[in-house]
């Protein structure tokens, strides 16, 4: 106790204020500075993102300025015949019928959205699995971006070959999934699964700041090639007689 009585507290008093200040500054670092640095980093990142988005927008304005709207509208009309925006089933069936007739084949059956022409082994496999498959799940399996249909044709092999060649030159893209050709006496019967794609405009996310897709020379050459194909799906409108005074006669 005697020692404590003799202790000079004025010494501590003299150092107290500077020490408290230094301690406060040292404590400021984890309490205030570090969170601020994290906040600034986030703000900076956000700013950089905004700047990048702005750069994309500015580039997009330049790119949009280069587009010839009239020319592209005409090209789109033509592309619509190649890959339409919807199924356009009546024109499709009419067109395929036209191709078959031009090749000299007889269309005996047409069925929309069939299953595949099953082989014997496939039939056996599906028979065992069919019990567990519900109608709903079958509907889900139907392709959403293409029309599939079955076609039955009759005629000789040469004509069928011509039909295939014409199909491949159709402006509306037509592909074949499967073929089954069978001879019945003198004529062949062909069962085909044909598919044709269609495409609706897709967009997702930040559409405004999404960069414009580039229409390359490859796009142009594919377009030119396909534009040269024959359009079998075109609408045929019968012109009525003109010059009638009484349209009901």
């Amino acid at each position, binding site marked *: 106790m005697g020692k404590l009585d003799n202790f000079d507290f004025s010494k501590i008093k*003299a150092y107290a204020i*500077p*020490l408290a*200040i*230094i301690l406060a*500054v040292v404590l400021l670092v984890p309490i205030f*500075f570090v969170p*601020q640095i994290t906040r*600034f980093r986030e*703000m*900076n990142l956000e*700013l950089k993102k*905004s*700047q990048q*988005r*702005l750069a994309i*927008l*500015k580039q997009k*304005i330049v790119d*949009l300025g280069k*587009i010839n*709207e009239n020319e*592209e509208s005409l*090209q*789109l009309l033509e*592309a*619509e015949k*190649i890959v339409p*925006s919807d199924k356009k089933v009546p024109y499709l069936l009419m067109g395929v019928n036209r191709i078959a007739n031009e090749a000299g084949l007889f269309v005996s059956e047409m069925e929309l959205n069939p299953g595949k022409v099953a*082989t014997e082994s496939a039939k056996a496999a599906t028979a065992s699995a069919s019990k567990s498959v519900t109608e709903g799940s079958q509907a889900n399996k139907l392709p959403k*971006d293409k029309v599939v249909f079955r076609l039955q044709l009759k005629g000789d*092999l040469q004509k069928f070959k011509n039909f*295939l*060649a014409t199909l*491949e030159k159709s402006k509306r*893209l037509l*592909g*074949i*999934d*499967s*073929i*089954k*050709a*069978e*001879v019945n006496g003198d004529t062949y019967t062909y069962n085909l699964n044909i598919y044709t*794609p269609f*495409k609706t*405009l*897709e967009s997702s996310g930040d559409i*405004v*700041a999404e960069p*414009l*897709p580039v*229409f390359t020379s*490859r*796009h142009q*050459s*594919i377009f*030119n*090639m396909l534009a040269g194909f024959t359009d079998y799906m075109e609408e045929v409108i019968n012109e009525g007689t003109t010059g009638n005074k009484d349209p009901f006669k």
Partner: protein
Amino acid sequence: MADINLVPEVARKEIKKTVSRQQTANKAALIAILVAGLILTAFFLYWLFIVASSKLVSMDTERSEGKVLEQSRKEITHRALVQKIDEASKFLSLVKPYSISFDELMILLNDSKSTLKIAEVGDEGKFKINGTIHNSSDFESLVEALSESESFSDSVLVTLDGVKDKPYAFDIEMKFLKKGLPEATSSAN
């Protein structure tokens, strides 16, 4: 009157030392305050810079968005056109040119004097043909032609049935290799 030093030499030194220590501590505290102040000022200036930049960018972005939206019809046309050509390109690269396969098959069958009974084409160009042929030498020429064909590969003879005075019946499985329309591949190059 002469100066009289009343403090002893040792005590004077001690006082000087104490005062010097206190001064150093005060200086350190002052420097710490100054450094903290400087950092705070830097932080404030940087915050000001970020806020001002963000405001400028957002104003510029708003103006640019307006310009883009003004031309939205042009953009929709362009996007639709490119997407459709891309879809067509995808289709052309995957489609099987079956006219070529049937053309070649007909030539092979005619050359070997065989008759096609059934032809099945399935997934990934899997070809299955069933037909009849008059003699073994014709069959040999058919097999040879198939093995030399550039369009077909992996030919496998599944069955070959021969009954006296009747043509041979055969089943052959093979793969049709070609993919994509010839026009499409040449235009892509």
